[in-house]
């Protein structure tokens, strides 16, 4: 019944969510709005990174996991071990943004190869001039997400070719403010993180167009949506434990999530086509009690 959907707050219970810091802003926004509508439901959203979140999700500690990459085989094996069944629901697109300091006036774009040279394990690049002749002979200061993040997995997978393979002598943090602060503070910095974080901090840094062979492309809502910003755009997901989904508060929460896709856009991500959200709604409908 849809009467539980009402604003009178008849719904109560707990929804436990954890996982990706990339997806966090969306889920947080949904949680915030959902709780305003249903003030007796307690929604907790942790930020353990996609992998960290799956660790809890696969043993049934959480109801929903935010993920900035698809679940891995090893994680699927865990769910089987623990008799956990789940649904994978795409919720938005993200473009990985490569960014530099505002005062950086030499980088016009970067190619995939250059990115790879900079970030691969044991990379010998320590100065900008080693990336492209003519660039300053200054030490390059690197910032990037920590190894628990899906962003890291995705970036290494796409750029270096092996998930998790990366040089290690950079400032790695799950804390996105560390990255923003660092890039903003060091003139010779270079970093990457989720598109949303760039959108929120547009004035404080410069985004670098990426050339994957078809000329430099700047990540925008449009280029991410139409797939031209490649290979650094990707879908984001939430994973829902189907057992949990039978609880009305979880069900309503997920439903709310899908019905309020504008929130994803509001926090800087790219909406999926509407039919994807409708599919999601159909997929969960089976679990409504």
């Amino acid at each position: 019944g849809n009467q539980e959907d009402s604003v009178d707050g008849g719904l109560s219970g707990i929804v436990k969510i954890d996982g990706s810091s990339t997806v966090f802003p969306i889920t947080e926004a949904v949680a915030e709005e959902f709780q305003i509508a249903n003030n007796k439901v307690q929604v907790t959203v942790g930020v353990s990174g996609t992998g960290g979140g799956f660790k809890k999700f696969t043993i049934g500690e959480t109801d929903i996991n935010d993920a900035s990459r698809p679940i891995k085989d090893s994680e699927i094996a865990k769910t089987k071990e623990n008799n956990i069944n789940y649904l994978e629901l795409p919720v938005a697109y993200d473009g990985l943004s490569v960014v530099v300091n505002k005062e950086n006036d030499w980088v016009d774009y970067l190619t995939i190869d250059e990115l790879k040279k900079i970030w691969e394990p044991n990379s010998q690049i320590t100065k900008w001039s080693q990336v492209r002749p003519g660039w300053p002979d200054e030490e390059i200061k690197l910032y990037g997400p920590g190894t628990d993040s899906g962003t890291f997995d995705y970036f290494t997978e796409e750029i270096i070719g092996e998930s998790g393979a990366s040089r290690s002598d950079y400032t790695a943090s799950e804390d996105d403010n560390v990255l923003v602060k660092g890039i903003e503070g060091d003139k010779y910095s270079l970093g990457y993180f989720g598109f949303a974080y760039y959108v929120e901090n547009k004035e404080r840094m410069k985004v670098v167009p990426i050339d994957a062979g078809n000329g430099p492309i700047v990540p925008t809502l449009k280029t991410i949506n139409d797939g031209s910003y490649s290979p650094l755009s990707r879908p984001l997901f939430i994973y829902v434990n189907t057992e949990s989904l039978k609880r009305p508060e979880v069900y309503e929460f997920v439903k709310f999530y899908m019905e309020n896709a504008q929130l994803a856009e509001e926090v800087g991500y790219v909406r999926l086509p509407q039919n994807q959200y409708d599919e999601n709604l159909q997929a969960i409908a089976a679990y409504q009690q």
Partner: protein
Amino acid sequence: MSMIRHNGNIKDIEKRRKKNMFYFSLFLFATLFGVITLAVLLVDVFIKGIPWLDWQFLNSFPSRFPERAGIKSAFYGTLWMLGLTAPIAFILGVGTALYLNEYAGDTKLKQILQININNLAGVPSIVYGLLGLGVFVRGFALGRSLIAGSLTMVLLILPIIVVASQEALKSVPSSQRNASYALGATKWQTIRRVVIPAALPNILTGTILALSRAIGETAPLIMIGALTFVAFVPGSPMDSFTVLPIQIFNWTSRPQEDFQYIAAAGIIVLLVVLLSMNGLAIYLRNKYQNKY
């Protein structure tokens, strides 16, 4: 003969006095350094935080919009934590101190207990976080709940309370105990009616200071996974929670500039809580200080 004026090298005395004054200023400056730092820190935080500090901030849950964000769930979380930690830590801490000071003879066991407690007082708080994670969150399967956080804090501040209580007990003059024993009181009667009442103000002072440590701790709670978006007031010890320092850490971790100011506003709230506790402790101490 005017020995006092002329004997001894007057210049020498001048030099010694100048040296004294020079170092005096240095020592004074060193002392003022702390005062000045505190002032700078407070001014910095206040300038950043005050414009954001209003009733709506105090009475709202965290939000992704800076202008909607508030401290309510963290504030209640801190109160819960205080409420759960205080009685357990107080009873265990004072009990341990009583055992060590009043009952344990001068045995090896007592020495071991004593050294152990002194060492625990110096264990980094993050190690308590690892302990809490291993024992309460995983071992007792309490999850990331208020009670798991509070018990971790209990262990963290226990040694501080024990040591402070021991000092308080030691400061009760033996003449007081003797007076009681000489009237035929038993040991427990003496402890309960004479020793504890006399030591209580200092014990409370120590406990309050220890609790204010617990309220300001961040690292151990991060270890047990309390860094979470929580937009409700916890209703039971088994609930998820957030507390002031964690919420502040969360805000400082956000990229948007405004959240830095929100964090400052949160810091002001945290400092007000702590300063009131410190104030209470200092008040208690001054009120009962010169009793003997």
